[in-house]
């Protein structure tokens, strides 16, 4: 069980499951999946903009729970190798934890602000919006992917 979960399944299996979740969200709730909308629900609830959490907040809570169940069943996390989280923590070295945390915080601000402005993230625009055939989601998805690819190559060149 442990090994089966720590090895990635075939891409078409995972892709089909994710597509089925998009379909199930419509079949059950008539809603488009999205995660930044769930985080937004928490912010709106905390700032008094909404009286109760919306379904996307519960969806986000479910993601946390699903990943916890996965970790318990798999016996380990599927994130990070050794003490490192990503290229960033490797580039900054063992003494750069605080700087890495600060950079991740700023990256998070860009992700939250950008995704809200574009009305969706990789899930909301990429999966939900593109599955729905929304031209705005196709444009947003193409844009954030192109920008992320360009910035990744730039970062690799300068680090």
């Amino acid at each position, binding site marked *: 069980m442990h090994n089966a979960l720590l090895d990635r399944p075939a891409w078409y299996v995972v892709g089909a499951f994710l597509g089925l979740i998009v379909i199930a969200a419509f079949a059950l709730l008539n809603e488009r999946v999205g995660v930044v909308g769930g985080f937004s629900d928490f912010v709106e609830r905390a700032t008094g903009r909404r009286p109760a959490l919306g379904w996307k907040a519960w969806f986000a809570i479910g993601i946390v729970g699903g990943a916890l169940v996965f970790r318990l069943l798999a016996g380990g996390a599927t994130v990070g190798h050794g003490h490192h989280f990503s290229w960033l923590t490797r580039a900054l070295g063992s003494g750069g934890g605080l700087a890495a945390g600060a950079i991740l915080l700023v990256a998070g601000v860009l*992700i939250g602000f950008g995704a809200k402005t*574009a009305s969706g993230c990789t899930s909301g625009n990429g999966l939900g919006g593109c599955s729905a055939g929304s031209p705005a989601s196709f444009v947003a998805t193409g844009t954030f992917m192109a920008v992320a690819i360009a910035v990744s190559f730039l970062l690799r060149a300068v680090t």
Partner: protein
Amino acid sequence: MNRVRLASVVLGGGFGFILSWAHFVDPDQIRRMLLFQEPYMWEMFAVAVGVGFVGLRVMRRLGLRSLLTGEPVRWSVAKPQRRHLVGATIFGVGWAVSDVCPGPVAAQLGQGVIWSLPLLAGIGIGIALYFRREQAPGPRTKRAARRRPASAAAPVALPASNPD
């Protein structure tokens, strides 16, 4: 817990489990994707969108109704606007620097990854800044308000926060 909340948690649970199993939560995998070092994530994404695209149209063609709301399965689409380009550009920079997006951040939290905490805090701040900016009158609105008497000032129309 009502049925909608329960269904949302179950759907999210499946999503978090699959993201974890596919290693979509691992920043190194996302970096390899963005640097075209392996096709796995691109292939997975294409299949997910393909299955969703076909499945939604089949449901709509069959006239199916949502199980919990009873509404016919349907959706609206939006035309691209400047904000989609601007927002996606900002999002893309944050995604490339962190190699993590909102779904995987939540899954990392579930897996007990401590690095998800600054990302989560940042996303919360970013969303709060979005609402702050949304409420603030823009330069044109300020100029127009100065030209108009106070009694004639119309309320600023806010864009829908999540039409997609």
